């Protein structure tokens, strides 16, 4: 079969998607060769690739496209088989839609890293990440999947490590690499197990049910949870994201961790390739814990990017809750519940990709312009970077699920599915779970509001707290454009739910029974938004009119008569979070210590220091001892094994050879 013939067989959609692949490969190759190039070649070609991908999605219409890549590209047991069905298309669209603004944003951001990194390498890694993510969501067999999954892990590792002159970054990238190794290890083990049960590498040929499904399911789920950053495997996420350049954090947090969501959906829900009995309850429990854990730890963070990374843990939890509801519906034969949960989860995946990339880009602008990531050192940025501030506020409102933005739309559908579970669940305990999930989501929503009020107001409002913040200025026009584009997408995706339900209903129809989610969206959100905006405009005009008569006076902030306020008297992020942090202090041992100095320190302190600390039990009590134990154990083992004797090594080789022959040759 020649390459040419193969192209004739795939239709136009396949052609455009392969074009995108080729374009990204070009960026990859030239990036490696020309590592210092800073012009518009890389972003232009990468964006063209994203556009080609969108064209491919649009051309494919409702049909499912199969692409069989011809012979030279063969992986031993199976080839690069791609299936592009509605589910793949949904994730391809997420990749393309967030890829475009992030690519637009990147040159302006990379400019401030120019002395520390090679832009060519970053572009090579970035395009390879885009390509491998597309490969992951299109692969129809386990081997191709793992290949792309590994490419994704390695390219994202190279991106995290790009600024490797910083000690912190090196540490973060190694932790990230370790996490990806563990994740892929579990995933591979699970796939091999599934293969040994079914004898096939193709997902669609898997139909594992009953007790046989438990082992592979658990392994695969652990592997995926590590990638997704689900509790308790989330530890790499808040370490790797702050270390990576902002566009990389945006694509990793916005899209890359969602490939795990895709895989769960593909294997367990839409295709029912593996039927795991307790999937629903497992996803619900771990989702709820992740969501709560993420938001409560986000509240403790002052590093803006780390805060956002913890919010990714939270949102992954929310998505998993939706998938869990969906699986519960499937297990109890309630098709509408299955479809609602799935639709809510996938819709939230899209929305989270949009607003999380927006927020990371906002953090990136601040980082590029002020070299600050600690919000305690920012302040008053809204006067210096109005566009970023507006876009960041919009993104915050979206992630807090405030109507009419997109976060609300997906969380509303999720609430509806919880309500449905509480209404139609098979047993009283299941129904109570539905109510409980509603309460948890409400709690998480309110905590997210607290967290983002903290982030927005300490970073952007008030007075600048340091000179760096005082000297801030707006990012380049492209950076602003990227943020505005995403902010507009937040609004569009919030208002255009009925349109977005079309592709979603194609996906939910894959669960077996025909699509039922056509009219689950009952809120006339467009009209309500218009009413709201009209009211706002009317009141604003009225206020303007009143201010003609009595103009606004500008004066200082009330300082209780002590003279002008210094920026230090402002409320800090720590103080803002303190009441909530102390309520949940049992989870992480929160301590506030106030020490006063000076001779008459009780009544006339000269200086007062307040310090808050927290110790996360999961890290200090569980992972640290475990890792220390492994270190110690492997240290001893290494001493024994690597004795330095050549004969000993030769014996190892001989043993390995014998084992391989035993496995491979003897039947």
């Amino acid at each position, binding site marked *: 079969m020649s390459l040419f013939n193969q192209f004739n067989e795939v239709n136009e959609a396949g052609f455009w998607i392969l074009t995108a692949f080729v374009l990204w490969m070009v960026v990859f190759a030239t990036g490696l060769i020309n590592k210092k190039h800073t012009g518009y070649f890389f972003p232009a070609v990468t964006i063209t690739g994203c556009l080609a991908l969108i064209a491919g999605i649009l051309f494919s219409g409702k049909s499912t496209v199969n692409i069989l890549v011809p012979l030279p590209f063969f992986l031993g047991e199976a080839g690069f088989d791609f299936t592009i069905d509605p589910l793949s298309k949904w994730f391809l669209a997420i990749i393309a839609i967030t890829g475009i603004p992030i690519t637009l944003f990147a040159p302006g951001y990379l400019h401030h890293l120019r002395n520390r990194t090679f832009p060519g390498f970053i572009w090579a890694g970035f395009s390879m990440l885009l390509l491998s993510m597309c490969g992951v969501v299109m692969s129809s067999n386990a081997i191709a999947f793992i290949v792309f999954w590994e490419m994704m892990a390695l390219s994202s590792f190279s991106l995290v490590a790009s600024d490797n002159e910083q000690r912190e970054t090196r540490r973060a990238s190694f932790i990230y690499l370790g996490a990806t190794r563990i994740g892929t290890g579990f995933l591979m083990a699970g796939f091999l197990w599934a293969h040994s049960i079914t004898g096939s590498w193709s997902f669609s040929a898997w139909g594992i049910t009953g007790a046989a499904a438990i082992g592979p399911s658990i392994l695969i789920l652990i592997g995926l949870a590590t990638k997704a950053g689900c509790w308790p495997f989330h530890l790499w996420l808040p370490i790797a994201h702050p270390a990576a350049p902002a566009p990389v954090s945006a694509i990793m947090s916005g899209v890359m961790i969602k490939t795990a969501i895709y895989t769960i959906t593909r294997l367990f829900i839409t295709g029912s390739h593996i039927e795991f009995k307790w999937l629903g309850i497992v996803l619900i429990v771990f989702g709820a814990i992740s969501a709560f854990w993420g938001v409560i730890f986000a509240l403790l963070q002052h590093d803006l990017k780390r805060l956002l990374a913890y919010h990714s843990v939270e949102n992954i939890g929310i998505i998993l809750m939706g998938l869990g509801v969906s699986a519960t519906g499937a297990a109890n034969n309630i098709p509408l519940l299955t479809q609602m949960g799935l639709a809510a989860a996938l819709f939230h995946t899209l929305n989270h990709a949009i607003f999380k990339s927006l927020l990371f880009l906002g953090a990136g602008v601040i980082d590029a312009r002020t070299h600050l990531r600690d919000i305690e050192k920012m302040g008053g940025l809204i006067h210096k970077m109005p566009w970023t501030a507006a876009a960041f*506020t919009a993104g915050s409102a979206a992630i807090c699920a405030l109507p009419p933005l997109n976060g609300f739309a997906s969380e*509303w559908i999720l609430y509806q599915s919880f309500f449905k579970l509480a209404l139609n669940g098979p047993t009283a305990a299941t*129904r*109570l779970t539905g109510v409980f999930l509603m*309460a948890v989501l409400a709690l998480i929503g309110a905590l997210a509001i607290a967290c983002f009020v*903290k982030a927005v107001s300490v970073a952007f409002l008030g007075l600048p707290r340091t000179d760096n913040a005082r000297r801030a200025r707006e990012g380049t026009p492209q950076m602003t454009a990227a943020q505005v584009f995403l902010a507009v997408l937040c609004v569009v995706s919030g208002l255009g739910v009925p349109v977005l339900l079309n592709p979603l209903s194609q996906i939910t129809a894959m669960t077996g029974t025909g699509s039922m989610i056509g009219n689950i969206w009952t809120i006339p959100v467009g009209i309500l938004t218009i009413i709201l905006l009209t009211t706002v405009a009317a009141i604003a005009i009225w206020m303007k009119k009143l*201010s003609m008569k009595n103009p606004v006076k500008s004066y200082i902030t*009330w300082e209780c008569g002590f003279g002008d306020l210094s920026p230090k008297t402002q409320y800090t992020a720590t103080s803002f979070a303190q009441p909530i942090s102390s309520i949940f202090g049992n989870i992480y041992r929160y301590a506030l210590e106030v020490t006063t100095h000076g001779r008459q320190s009780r009544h006339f302190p000269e200086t007062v220091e307040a310090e808050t600390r927290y110790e996360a039990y999961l890290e200090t009590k569980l992972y640290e001892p475990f890792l220390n134990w492994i270190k110690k154990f492997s240290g001893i083992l290494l001493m024994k094994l690597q004795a330095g004797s050549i004969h000993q090594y030769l014996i190892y080789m001989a043993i390995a050879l014998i084992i391989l022959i035993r496995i491979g040759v003897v039947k």
Partner: protein
Amino acid sequence: MKNIFPLIFTVVNLLIIPLLLTGVIRKVKALMQNRIGAPVLQPFYDVAKFLSKSETISKNTSWVFTAAPIIGLSVAFLAGALFPWSGSFLPGKFAAASNIFLLIYLLALGKFFSMLAAMDTGSAFGGLGASREATISMMVEPIVITGLGALCLNAGTPNLQSAFAGNINPIIAGLTGTALIIASLAELSRIPVDDPTTHLELTMVHEAMILENSGRNLALIEYTTAIRSCIFYGLTTQVFFHMLPFTHSMNPILQYAAGIAGVLLFGCAVAFAEGILVKLKWRNVPNFLTFGTVLSLLAALIAVTQR
């Protein structure tokens, strides 16, 4: 003709009742303290006075400070209009918009901006108020969602308007109603969670947040607070109405009158309670609010076992 009444009701609810409620609460509270107190219509005069005054704004502020009260009031208007008052109903498409989740997140939208505005001035007062407001709303939102969720489960629809149109188990209604009382005391910054009449450090939640607002800005905020009180008291009253089986089958006008009377009576009760209760220590507020959570969880437990 049938459509006219609900419209009138909604307009009256949004324009007259909120400030009247504030006036009634203040009057009853004054009487409890052996004072004569300001006339019941004083809040109307206050708002009119604030509107006619000029406004002083801190030079540190940005557009958020100016926009927040406007957004807050608009959101309160919208939520108040969507809220299913007894006797009125939302026509056609809008009926679906009286969804509990939408209403609660709409109110949260207003709160989000009011907290931002409080932080915008760079004053520690605003920060303290906003931080505590965030803490309280974190504890209140689960109560409201669980409680109303239990109620709606019993009615079989997440739509408040349809839920209130039918029968509800009186035990669930009672538990949810009590939970909502606790929630509304905290949400509206009233004793025993916050003292709305002072802005001393010990009591500052709402009042500390709006310390920097003056003139027209303040008028908008006062009005918003009044509407929010009206919504919460109205909600609680409606829930309690369902403990009395006959109320939701009455004539709409009678129902409406009963609803308004309920809201005002509720205001009196709150003022009465404020006369005899003391403010809780801030550290004890979570304890107080957890009672609300448990009550609404109990309501939910009964609701799920009753199906």
